[in-house]
Every structure is written in C-alpha cells, then in structure tokens.
C-alpha cells in the first residue's frame, strides 16, 4: 500500500510541476514574446489609451453608435462576468423580452424595416459578443446617419467596408465588429 501511495504522490507532484507550472509559464513566455498583442487581450487604443478589446463587445446605447446585441453578462457587457439567459425556447419570459426589445428597436429606428434581424433581439451566449450580423448593422444605418448628420450612403459604405467574411471562405458566418465599426465612425464623422 505504501508503494502505491508513494507512486501516486510522486506522480501528482511531478505532473503539477510539468503541466501546472512549466507548461502554462512556457506558453505564456513564448506567447508574450511572439504574439504580444494577442496574448495581452487584443486591446484597441485611441490616442494611446485602451478603449476596449477587439474581441470583447461593449455596451452602446447612444443613437450615433451602432448597437450590439442584448447582453446578460453582469448588468450588460460586464467583461469580468460573462453570462447568458439560458432561457428555454418555450419560455414565455424570453418571448416577452424579445417583444420588448423589438418594440424598443422599432421606436429608435423608425426608418428601418418592420422585421428586426434576429441577433438584435436575442441575447448572445457569452454576453460579450463583439459582433452583429451585416443585416443587423445595415438595419441601423439610417438612425446612425441621422444622429451624426452624415449621409446614409456614407455610413452604409462604412458598414460594407467592415463586413468580415467567413474564415477561409466557408467557416463560420460573416460578421461586423461593432467596436471597430464605431471607432471608424468616430474617425469618419466626429460628433
């Protein structure tokens, strides 16, 4: 029995050193040296000050910015507390929330078509989804243009320039990164 326990204890010790300490530290060291930007969280800056991460959505509510998806991370886009609704498709509470979001969106976007793109009324899995679909961005163009006093055509062109296609041409879905789009918007037409 002693020999079995000795083997178990020894193996746990060695594995903790190798896989728990050496492995993550080695990967951290190499990653920091070779891919410092990604390893540090893909932070985007304005005038040298970080304004967010290219991979993490943030809350937008002003009419002059494109809005992201409903978020249930903390109180909304809390990047230290990711979360989702986990509500069932048969949940009455979820359907009520969807109706409420759709009504609010229609009120803010009177020029947009009646049918709201589905990603704008459904909460994402992470609560930090940095993307919306191109359809959801195009749906908001008129509101953003009006709030900024810009031409809808110019804003639409900016959206189209920010549509990221599928990886390798077929993986995943086309997306628009909301933070990057809004940064570009600020550059094109400061408010």
């Amino acid at each position, binding site marked *: 029995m002693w020999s079995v326990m000795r083997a178990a204890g020894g193996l746990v010790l060695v594995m903790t050193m190798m896989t728990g300490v050496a492995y993550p530290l080695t990967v951290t060291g190499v990653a920091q040296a070779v891919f410092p930007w990604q390893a540090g969280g893909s932070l985007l800056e304005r005038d040298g000050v970080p304004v967010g991460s290219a991979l993490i959505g943030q809350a937008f509510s002003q009419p002059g910015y494109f809005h992201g998806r409903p978020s249930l991370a903390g109180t909304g886009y809390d990047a230290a507390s990711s979360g989702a609704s986990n509500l069932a498709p048969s949940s009455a509470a979820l359907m009520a929330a969807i*109706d409420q979001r759709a009504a609010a969106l229609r009120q803010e976007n009177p020029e947009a078509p009646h049918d709201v793109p589905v990603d704008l009324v459904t909460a994402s899995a992470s609560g930090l989804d940095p993307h919306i679909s191109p359809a959801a961005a195009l749906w908001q163009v008129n509101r953003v243009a009006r709030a900024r006093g810009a031409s809808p055509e110019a804003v639409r062109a900016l959206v189209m320039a920010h549509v990221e296609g599928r990886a390798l041409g077929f993986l995943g879905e086309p997306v628009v990164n909301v933070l990057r789009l809004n940064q570009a918007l600020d550059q094109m037409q400061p408010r």
Partner: protein
Amino acid sequence: MDANGLLTIVVFCALVLALTPLLGRYMTAVFDGQVKGLGWLERPIYRLCGTSADEEQHWSRYALSLLAFSAVGMLLLYALQRLQGGLPWNPAGLAAVAPDLAFNTAASFVTNTNWQSYGGETTLSYLTQMAGMTVQNFVSAATGIAVAIALIRGFARHSARTVGNFTVDVTRAVLYLLLPLCVVGALALVALGVPQNLSAYTSVTTLEGAQQLIAQGPVASQMMIKHLGTNGGGFFNVNAAHPFENPSALTNLIHMVAIFAIGAGLTNTFGRMVGSQRQGWMILTAMTILFGLSLAVALGAEVQGHPLLAAHGIDQLASPWQSGGFLEGKEVRFGVVTSVLFSIVTTAASCGAVIAMHDSLLPLAGMMPLLNMMLGEVIIGGVGAGLYGMMLFVLLAVFIAGLMVGRTPEYLGKKIEGRDMTLALLAILAFPLCIFGLGSIAMVWGQGAIQDAGPHGLSELVYAYVSATANNGSAFAGFSANTLLHNILLGLAMLAGRFMVIIPLLAIAGAMAARKTIPPSAGTFPTDGGLFVVLLIMVVLVIGGLTFFPLLALGPLAEHLTLAAGTLF
C-alpha cells in the same frame, strides 16, 4: 443549411479521419515503449515514484494505483481551492471556495467531467486554474487513455498476468502525447487571438465613456488541453462561447478537431495493438454513423428556426447578410450550423465545452446532446473513455450474437465468459443507477434549482444528472446547480460514473490478458464486417434508447410538440 455549412462538416470530418491513422500509429509506439526521446526525463520520474519502465502490474494493482492517484489529485485540488485566498497568482483577490463547491469541482476535474457549478473568472485564482484545473485536465485525460491502453493490452496479450504499469502509462501519455500537442496548439490559439498572460484584469474606458473591466489570464494554455483532453472546463463562465476562449471560426475548428483527435486515434491504436487495423476501423465506422445520425437530427431541427418568431416580426431567415435561425444563446460569428455541430461534437465526445448555450437550443436540437450522453458517450467519446465505453457494448453485441447462433461468444480470439458479462453489465448499470437514483433524489428535494417551467424544466434537471454521470460537464445552464444538495449529488454521480465503469473494465482487461487466444473457426462471428457494425449500433441504441426514452418523451419531445402548437411556459 447552405454549402458553407456542409463544407464545414465535411472538412472537419476529413481532418479527424486523416489524423486517425497518424495518431493511432504514434500512440501505439508510445505505449509499446518505442518512443524514447524523453527517457532522461522519464527515468527520474519513475525513480521518484518507486517504479521503473519495465515493471508491470496485475490489473488489481493497476486499478489501485489509479484510485490512489485520483484520490491524491482530488485532495490537492480541494486544498488549492480552499486556500487560494492566501496563495500567490490571485490578482483579482478571489476568496476561498465554499466546501461543497470545492468538493464538487474537485470531483468534477479528477473524473474528466469538468462540470462547472462556478463561474471561472469570478471564482478561481490563476494559481488554482493552472496548478489545479490545468493539471487535472492533463492527468484525468492521461488516466482515461491509460485505462483504454490497459484494456487493449488485455485483448492483445494471451496467457499474461499483467496489463501494464499505470505510472508509466500516465507519464508517457502526458510527456509524448498531450504536452507536445498542447504547446503547439496553444501557441496557434494565441496567434489567432486567445489571450495568454498573468496580468491583472484590464480596466478600459469605452467609446461611450463607461468603465469596462476585462477579465483575462492564461487562457490559451488551458483551452488547448481542455479540448484535446475532452475535459471541457472553461476558463470563463460561458466556456468556449467566450470570445477570448474562442475568438473565431478558425479557433473553433482547432477546438473541434482537438476534441475528436485522440478518441478517434485510439480506435486505430486498438486495431494495431490487437493485430488488425480493420477491427479499429469498424468501431470508428459505427461511431461515425451514430455521429452522422445525431448531427442530422439536431441540424434538421435548429436550421428551421423558432416556430413563433416570424409572427412577432423577427427576421430569422438565412441570407447572405445573416446566418438567421434562433440566436438566443448563440454567437453571431458561429451562427446556427457551427453551434449545432459543436454541441454534437462536445457531447459525442465527453468534452462538455460549449460555444452555444444548450439550454436555449430548440427542443429537438437540445435533445440530441442529451441522447449522445445517455448512449454512454461512445461516439468517439472521451479520450480513452470513449473506446473503453464502446468496448462494453462490443462485448454485449458479441454476446448477443453468440446467443443467436448458439455458440460460446468470442472476440478477437478470446472466449467471453459469464464473469466478463457480469462485469460489463455492472459497468453499464452505473448509468441508470446514477441518473435514475441520484436524479430522483434531486427531483424530490432539489426542484428549486430548475429555471424554466413546463417540460423544459425536467430537461434541465435530467441534463445535469446525465452530464455528471457521463462525465461530460456541459449543462442546461439555467439549472442553478451551485447548491449544497446538487453539489454533493452531482459530485457523487461524477465519481460513480467514472470509477464504477473503470474498475470492472480493468477487471475484464486482466481476465482477457490471462486467457489463451483461440484461432477463429467457422462458427466465429466476424467482428470486422458490416454486419457487426450494424449489430453494434443497434445494441448502443437499444440500451441507451430504451433505458432513457421516457425522460426524452416527457422532456424535449413534449416541449417540441407543445411549442409547435404555440404553447409557452
């Protein structure tokens, strides 16, 4: 579903199939002791553990070593969580984890389940994540591989007393297989955007002037082993749906291939070690057919979208500008097809990572992950666990075939005897015992954890207990499992679901190794042909399906029918 979705599935399957013989050959060499490049590192490890590479163990000794190793690992993990408040690498200043949650989490990671009653970024320090979680991610996976290898040796050897050396098998699995693949994979993930640092959480001022605190950490190193080892425990609360864990469809493809790679490769290792690769390919064929069926049903349900949304003025039609579909609990970059594909992969294997919230999948799409786990996760399955779990059904299939033709059943030249079948059934019974037994207790005293009303509420509770027993770890996460009762019951389910299967299987391995090999005769039922594949699939479906069908009927099937009729709860 469009051509892009189909191509994604085809490319994914092709990558896994291409890797199978490569990894299969490599693992055969590793566990036969022919890969020696790190011998200088191996020898002192074995000396410290009081063993050597040549020392072999009887199955009972092998099992005892496994249990002792798991027990010590579990104690250490428990201690780390309880003491993290006073230990270094805790920049967020997180306090000690509560005892019942720490027990649940320790059981969860030692059994390769990675059920998470907690949210990573709000509960665990970097030290606990690295020295606790990451370590168990490696060694619980290595343990699963070791058991599979011991079982294969049982079939491959004859008139032998031993099945290998546990310490040596685990060490080699980590040194030669898991660590190298993880270092390369983790760096690839960083290149594609996954963070890897030990800095404090980053505070930024957003474009609208609000403060946002961005949680980070050594994410990439944990991501790679979490998927390669089919562990599934996320760095963050929402697991691989978090854009830092899984920033793009490309990282997602790496994750999915990593989940299946070793499990699929082991079927080839099995074939090689028993002297007929065809035997391995037949098992993989049965697995692939079950995978295809499962994926087809789930996709068929989810791509149609939510039956009630259109009437509410919501546009969920697929177009070049949106994936469409019901996107509650899904990420835009993955859309419907990739999300469903991942949900099937993660539950076919015993991974349990998620990129979409399974709780919000449409009823029939949510049913398939549940069914995959109920079948015992034998579709590729957990690393090692998938193969040894499938072996139970293989023995059962061979036994039934033997009964039908009235001859003593045999497999790979070994006669299957009454004692083997008793042991196999004992292992198979662990599932209904935990799911119905512990699940019933939870149903009576733990209903408060259920979030949704109606049939979906039943699905939530059942999913938790199936996931724990099957050592999967994914959840219908609306279920608030972090209560004293559920933490303890689910912890027990995970331990029973792991060790009640492993111990009988090692006993079978020992019995097979000791037995003589007999040459095939005219009455031998061939196990390397299509007939066997069909029989095996039927056995898997009948055992899993019939045992648990009532739960499916009262949960997801009832929800599907009522939702189609327009009923909300």
